[in-house]
């Protein structure tokens, strides 16, 4: 019995040493670990999709039955708007002699999983290099900016949300053109930093992307100012994103020109 316990402890010690070695390599960003992770996920995600298909089907059916009447109304409204947009598009085409070309494209995608311990930090979507996704592309929801693509594999992409503590985006207040830096706080809100104390910012102001640098273009809606405190050299401005980050599902990735 004691011999077995000793032998067990030897193996446990060896495995613990191996675990710490692997975690050390992972912390240092060794490319081998990320490559293994990408290959593993490329195999696992489709399998999980198959296994979870019955549950998702039932869930969709229940959701459909629950929201049937509001869906009928929304459908009618969207058809009306679509016909209006088609009409405007045809006018534009005539005006520019059929040279109208969409300057930017949107790639639709779906959130396939979220990290339970980093709910407001990162998501993974079901489009990757094969669909033309690249690092740095902006990700939008139906109401505003959601995040930025930070890692791409063949069929998936990892998106850092604007609410992540590691997210920093150039932003400005649309009304007063006050420029600052939008930082995520790891929760449902963001903070707009480096707004000088004398700038004109009030509650309710719309915050948009500033478009500095080569990544996220300017003019994308982010959120609304919910709190302004004047303390010292800079103001403390809190922003509530327009998008509901607890319910991210169908998103769009903005292609760069």
């Amino acid at each position, binding site marked *: 019995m004691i011999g077995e316990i000793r*032998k067990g402890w030897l193996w446990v010690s060896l*495995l613990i040493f*191996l675990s*710490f070695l692997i975690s050390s390599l992972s912390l240092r960003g060794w490319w081998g*670990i990320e490559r293994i992770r990408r290959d*593993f996920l490329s195999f696992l995600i489709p*399998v999980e999709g198959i296994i979870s298909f019955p549950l998702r089907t039932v869930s969709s059916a229940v959701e459909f039955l629950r929201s049937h009447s509001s869906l009928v109304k929304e459908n009618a409204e969207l058809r009306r708007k679509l016909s209006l947009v088609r009409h405007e598009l045809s006018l534009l085409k005539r005006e520019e002699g059929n040279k109208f070309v969409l300057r930017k494209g949107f790639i639709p995608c779906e959130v396939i999983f979220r990290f339970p*311990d*980093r709910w407001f930090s990162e998501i993974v979507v079901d489009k990757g290099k094969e669909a033309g996704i690249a690092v740095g592309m902006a990700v939008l929801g139906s109401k505003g900016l959601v995040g930025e693509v930070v890692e791409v594999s063949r069929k998936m992409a990892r998106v850092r949300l604007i609410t992540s503590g590691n997210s920093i985006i150039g932003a400005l207040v649309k009304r007063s053109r006050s420029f600052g830096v939008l930082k995520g706080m790891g929760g449902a809100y963001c903070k707009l930093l480096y707004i000088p104390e004398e700038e004109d910012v009030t509650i309710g102001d719309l915050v948009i992307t500033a478009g500095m640098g080569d990544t996220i273009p300017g003019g994308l809606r982010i959120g609304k100012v919910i709190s302004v405190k004047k303390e010292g050299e800079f103001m403390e401005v809190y922003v509530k994103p327009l998008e509901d980050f607890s319910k991210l599902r169908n998103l769009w990735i903005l292609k760069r020109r």
Partner: protein
Amino acid sequence: MGTLTPDLVLVVVFLFAYVRGGISAVFLSFGAGLMLDLRWEPVVGLSSVYLTVAAYLIDLFHRSPRFRSRSLKYIGVFLFLMLFYLFKFSFYSLLNVEYDVSYPVLLGRIVIDMLLFGIGTIVIGRGKSVTI
């Protein structure tokens, strides 16, 4: 959310350690920890540490006559689950890795894991005609 959820892997590892025990449970825990981290965590390797130690300790308790009591078994699983999450978030804090956690939700997940573990032991016990 996915099939290879941390809770499911934890419960499977603990069940295997109880039923099979021995070095095979330790190796299974190590492999399961690596797969868990590859699927869910930014740092690969930390889950293997907790799971390997937990599987070995469960095996020791299981062999010892003093810990054959059913209530002690469930208390042990509850403590292991609490310690698992405590270690994980402590390491993340030390390593400055970003994480969000809701403690009421976490407690709910631990309770569900224990229920799953209990159901698992009953099902396996009936299949083997052995009281676990």
